[in-house]
């Protein structure tokens, strides 16, 4: 295997990490909620894709038309009903973090428990586009390439929204300074709810894409929440470009480690990278905006 091939494989995986992290960043960096139940929405979206595909042969990409808005709505409701009382009560950002960690930790178990009850703890897997696809003379699985492609499209859309629209400007303002944003006329509650719901929608998209090539069960959520947290902190809280960069770095580092050292050490390499970044740049690669 050549270096280019390994790096390309890492980029494909890293693109998905970035997508998951950007969604988490919308919830943590903008809406200021540390959502430990974040990965559970990835899990539910994966199950939705699985059932739609196995029961009615609905293509997972088409199924996102249903699962992504549904997750958006569910997250919006969670913000309005569960998180808003905590936001209103919290005096400092630290207090809010502590309380949302506890609340979403509970939510994690509720969602996972319900999924286990409804779907059993079995690993699920379906074969969608599991064919070889040759790019630049290298073979990749078509479903992974598709997942990367969709992640790129979503990434570009998010980038355009954030840099070119009034909403995007408001989101950036909110990430930097909620009080200042409010003073300049941003409806903080409404925008936070939208950012939180938007984060949920992104992780639902990621869950659908991941389900096409990874087997999953009701307990997989936490692993992705942890990865998202690592990537977001590595890239800079509230900084979407930082999440993209850090996600890709993580994917490539894992791929290189798998090939040159041992895949058993990918987690160690990921955290080593995390430590190095934190020591050199404590506020993340690109910093907090």
């Amino acid at each position, binding site marked *: 295997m050549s270096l280019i091939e390994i790096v390309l494989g890492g980029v494909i995986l890293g693109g998905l990490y970035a997508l998951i992290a950007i969604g988490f960043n919308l919830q943590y960096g903008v809406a200021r909620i540390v959502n430990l139940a974040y990965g559970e929405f990835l899990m539910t979206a994966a199950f939705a894709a699985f059932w739609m595909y196995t029961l009615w042969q609905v293509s997972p990409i088409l199924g996102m038309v249903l699962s992504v808005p549904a997750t958006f709505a569910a997250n919006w409701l969670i913000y309005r009903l569960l998180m808003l009382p905590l936001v209103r009560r919290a005096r400092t950002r630290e207090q809010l973090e502590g309380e949302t960690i506890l609340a979403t930790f509970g939510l994690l178990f509720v969602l996972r428990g319900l999924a286990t009850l409804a779907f059993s703890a*079995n*690993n699920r897997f*379906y074969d969608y586009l599991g064919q070889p696809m040759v790019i630049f003379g290298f073979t990749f699985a078509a479903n992974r390439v598709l997942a990367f492609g969709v992640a790129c499209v979503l990434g570009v859309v998010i980038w355009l929204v954030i840099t070119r629209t009034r909403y995007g400007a408001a989101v950036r303002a909110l990430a930097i300074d909620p009080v200042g944003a409010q003073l300049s006329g941003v409806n903080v509650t409404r925008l936070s709810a939208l950012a939180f719901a938007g984060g949920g929608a992104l992780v639902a998209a990621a869950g659908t894409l991941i389900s096409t*090539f990874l087997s999953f069960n009701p307990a997989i959520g936490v692993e992705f929440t942890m990865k998202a947290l690592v990537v977001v902190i590595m890239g800079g809280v509230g900084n979407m470009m930082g999440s993209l960069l850090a996600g890709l770095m993580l994917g490539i580092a894992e791929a290189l480690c798998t090939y040159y050292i041992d895949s058993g050490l990918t987690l160690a390499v990921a955290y080593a990278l995390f430590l190095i970044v934190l020591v050199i740049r404590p506020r993340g690669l690109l910093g907090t905006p």
Partner: protein
Amino acid sequence: MRRQSNLLALTAALAVAGTVASAAIAADAPKSIRIGYAISLSGVNAQGAGVTTLPGYQLWVHDVNAKGGIMVKEFGKRIPVEVIQYDDTSSAETMLRLEEKLMSQDKVDFVLPPWSTGFNLAAAPIFAKYGYPHLAVTANANDETDLVKRYPTLFFFLNQPIHYGEALIAVLNKEKAAGKLNNKIAMLSVGDQFGAEMSAGFGAGLKAAGYEIVLQKSYPLGAADLTSEIKEAKASGADTFIAASYPPDTFMLTGTAIAQGYNPKIFYTAVGTAFAEYGGNFKEKVNGVMGIGGWNPNLPGAQDYYKRQVAVTGHAPDGWASPLTYASLQILEQAIEKAGTLDRKKVLDTIVNGGPWQTVSGPIDLKTHIHEKQWGAGQWQKGQFVGVSPADMPGAQPVIFPKPAW
């Protein structure tokens, strides 16, 4: 005051009378045979337990009660089965506490085993202490013969790990002798105790048989991508691919090999290969894939068992330990009927000496407490996971070789 104490005395007398009366009825015939078990409904073991063990328990209870219960001669009638189920949350300590509770407090008539080798070996002393027959289906160990001597209530239904390696090597040897297979092996293993023990066991057997392991790598449980491993295996020049894998990675390795167009002559994955979902997902592509375990679906009652389990529990049995789970319960049922009593000591003796028992996995004799002769390796053939090795097993199918391209 006086009136009150009279009332008290009366209630006490009635209570005593009530107990005596119900005790008398109990001696006649219990209203149910109480079966208890602690199993992993949540946590890391829940998947394995949910595929292999629990549906078998549910189906058996359903089947027995549909007949009106188990015929117990002592009472001259069929007695239905009542279940007490606990979730051990995949924690060994919890499981041990629950086993003790089932036997000492709930005082159930029989206890069905938990899931996994580790849990069953940990629970064996408790079963022995309380004298409950322990039909440990999902357990195996290299020192099975010593263990059943130490715990007289213990029975094994799965082969010792080394036998699985031998069963596969027998298949390889035949093709190698015919000059159709090179002596190179690419072997991957999941980075936990199972992967380490299995790859060590297989590796030793393979080296002794003159094979060269040209690639040996382990990967973490829950790895997100095994493309690089499959590419290395493809580049290794080995005709034989062996993975000491667990269900999630068994699925991923197969999917990746298909995507990478990797078609070794022998493609062997371990736990999960025999799952119905495996064939259900990859369909005819996995024709010729080999895996651990095996089953003879043409045995009398086997197809019927398969269909009933799907209908009753919604879970298709796997081609390895699922039928053995159901078989172990058929043995328990037949042993109770043959012994004609719920006395555990007598039932235990009957299990040992009353065989061979007719089951959905064929006849099983437990004289040595170990189900000796059984499948070591199976293969997906025409949408079913069937036993192929050892070749002298009744119903052994000829091996499809080389594995057809995906």
